[in-house]
């Protein structure tokens, strides 16, 4: 293939041949090679372990300053948001800085329907929501309304591109917050809406309001843990939904739009329609997360829906790896967990630290982390590997195996790669093009 020359020392030929040969890739390859039942057999216990984290109270992992269950519940919400935002930013490549608007709309929908202080309260006399099931009934309504708002906001703005889109969505996010703040008569303005409904389940002597009520339980199994479990259910549903979309025509269109919108348009992808789809789907997932938030905190007010938090969501997506569903969940975990990990901690492994202060400085550290990450690893912690969507995973793995077999034959010929040329999503795509074409030839 290439001119045979001696491999340079310190630069192994395998690395040259295989652009993705890190630990993560090894794990991913191994995982992809497993059969479906094996994947379930391994994945399910792992999921259960993750779900049981707040109960197990692992010494170093458990937060000191705040309730670990509460932290994990917050992580659940952020993970759901990250999955939704990932559809918009990671999949379709639309930079949405006002995503928090959808989160707010979801939260306010539930609050407006179920809070006694809201003029549209439906839980009281004459309302059509039963007291016990109000939250669960309001959840699909919140999702539907945020999806609708995504449609309304997206249809005029998605004709704009890139930076313009970013700033206009930022404007919309701010408008949603300011509306919530200024429409005193409906949203209660700065006072917010209190006593939002929550699922009334597991009512017992000790928990007269059910396990989801804010004051319920103590110690390891408190309301936060229940909310965390509820959010895991929603996350799994969202992951199945988004994962299937990714492998469909819609998902392929998103990737095409992300990589080159003009080219996609020319190739017959109705770009505007699929961008709108991404916006609406992302919005509805954000709305679901907002509903979770409103239920868990049982109170909404505008201050939580500011731009800084919107940027924090974006942080989670970028940090984890745009486009990778598991990556963004990891990103959400880092964003939520790290500050809480340090909160109230006075020592770590015997080294004395002032944890509360570190937690206070979190935006400073997030800012530095973002800057450093963008220079050295712009693809995020767990980068996306979006390849051969048409041919399916099985074929891809088969092709990988063939290439693996060919590796030994090509041991002596070195393949000059220019290393990491460009950065970012482009590089993930571009680095893999060589491998892609090989795999396609195999097919």
């Amino acid at each position, binding site marked *: 293939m290439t001119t045979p020359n001696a491999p340079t020392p310190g630069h192994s030929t395998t690395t040259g041949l295989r652009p993705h040969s890190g630990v993560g890739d090894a794990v991913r390859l191994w995982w992809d090679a497993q059969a479906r039942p094996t994947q379930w057999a391994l994945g399910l216990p792992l999921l259960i372990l993750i779900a049981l984290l707040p109960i197990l109270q692992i010494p170093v992992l458990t937060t000191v300053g705040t309730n670990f269950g509460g932290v994990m519940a917050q992580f659940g919400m952020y993970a759901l948001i990250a999955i939704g935002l990932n559809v918009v930013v990671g999949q379709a490549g639309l930079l949405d800085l006002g995503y928090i608007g959808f989160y707010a709309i979801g939260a306010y929908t539930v609050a407006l329907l179920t809070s006694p202080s809201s003029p549209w309260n439906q839980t009281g006399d004459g309302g059509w929501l039963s007291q016990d099931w109000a939250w669960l009934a309001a959840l699909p309504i919140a999702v539907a309304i945020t999806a609708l708002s995504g449609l309304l906001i997206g249809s005029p703005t998605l004709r704009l591109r890139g*930076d313009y889109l970013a700033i206009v969505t930022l*404007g919309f996010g701010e408008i949603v917050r300011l509306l919530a703040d*200024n*429409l005193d008569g409906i949203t209660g303005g700065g006072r917010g809406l209190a006593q939002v409904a929550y699922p009334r389940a597991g009512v017992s002597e000790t928990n007269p309001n059910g396990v989801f009520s804010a004051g319920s339980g103590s110690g390891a199994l408190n309301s936060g843990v229940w909310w965390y479990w509820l959010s895991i259910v929603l996350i799994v549903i969202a992951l199945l939904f988004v994962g299937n979309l990714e492998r469909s025509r819609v998902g392929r269109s998103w990737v095409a739009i992300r990589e080159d919108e003009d080219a996609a348009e020319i190739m017959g992808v109705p770009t505007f329609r699929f961008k709108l789809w991404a916006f609406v789907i992302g919005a509805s997932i954000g709305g679901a997360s907002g509903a979770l938030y409103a239920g868990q905190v049982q109170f909404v007010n505008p201050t939580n829906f500011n731009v800084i938090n919107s940027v924090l969501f974006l942080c989670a997506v970028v940090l984890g790896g745009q486009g990778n569903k598991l990556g963004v969940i990891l990103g959400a975990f880092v964003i939520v967990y790290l500050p809480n990990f340090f909160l109230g901690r006075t020592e770590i492994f015997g080294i004395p630290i002032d944890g509360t202060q570190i937690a206070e400085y979190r*935006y400073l550290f997030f*800012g530095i982390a973002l*800057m450093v990450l963008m220079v050295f690893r712009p693809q995020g912690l767990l980068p996306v590997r979006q390849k051969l969507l048409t041919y399916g995973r099985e074929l891809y793995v088969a092709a990988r195996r063939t290439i693996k077999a060919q590796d030994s034959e090509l041991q002596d010929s070195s393949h000059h790669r220019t290393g990491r040329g*460009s*950065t970012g999503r482009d590089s993930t795509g571009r680095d893999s093009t060589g491998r892609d074409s090989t795999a396609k030839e195999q097919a």
Partner: protein
Amino acid sequence: MTGGLLHTMVVAEPLIGFDVAALGRNFWALTVDGLTYGSVYALVAVGYTLVYGVLRLINFAHSEVFMLGMFGQYAALMLLGFGPNGDAYDMGIVMTVLYLGAAMIGGMAISGGVAVGLERVAYRPLRKRGAPSLVFLITAIGASFVLQEFVHFVLPRLTGGTLGGVNAQQPIRLVEPEVQFQIGSANVTNVTLIIVVSALLLALATDQFINRTKFGRGIRAVAQDPVTATLMGVSRERIIMLTFLIGGILAGAAALLYTLRVPNGIVYSGGFILGIKAFCAAVLGGIGNLRGALLGGLLLGVMENYGQVVFGTEWRDVVAFVLLILVLMVRPTGILGESLGRARA
């Protein structure tokens, strides 16, 4: 028909006030005050527009450059021996203008320095790697966080609590607002005069610099075609640095003018919304277009002031964002179109 309309207005009345008559009553006062805000927006918008014109990058951290400029001029005033007492100093016109000039230079130095430093530390490594624009934007957001939190937490430690921190700085007043003359029914104060006149002078100077000097030609050349400009002997890196410097300097000047109008605005989070609005102004006028940024700034300031009287003060920011969205819907390239490279005159 009219009955239905009236009915909706009555229903909407308690939620959103709708008072057009107030606009008519205070038209001139609102215009004049809007121009003072507009001048500040315009100067900050120049920073966005120049960087965008040359690099196709939204320098999201420019709002923090402006914020640091406010602290820069404040620190300069403190170094000159002023302190935050309740009353305004009364030193006569000449001395006041001199001290204000000194403070402005302080603000310009800090802002310009931060802007150039930001370019060196944050953006240049990315440029060398040829990163896509999303990466630049996210870095800018990160830098914005860092600069804000620096003033929030680190600066008070460095200065022993005199600068920075959670609370806004106690205002140092050099000028007491006094009515000088009237336009229509509007009172024009000395503060308004200082802001508008200095902003106009700076805008004029920048315009001349971009359009008449060798450096300005270089900026326009790089904005138009970076490769050809490099082939013609223009150092792209140096031009980029110059662009950030000019943007920073103008933001520093704007910072001083803004604190004259809003003395309690010197706080770590004080640049954020203003920066977004200045960016809106740049987009309104046509981003990448210098005169567009100036026009957009003045327009935004005035429209926002009209809007806040018609709909109520709390809707001020909403008016700005809605205006931006409407303009982008109708004319996505802004009022004057986006062209720094092609702007001959």
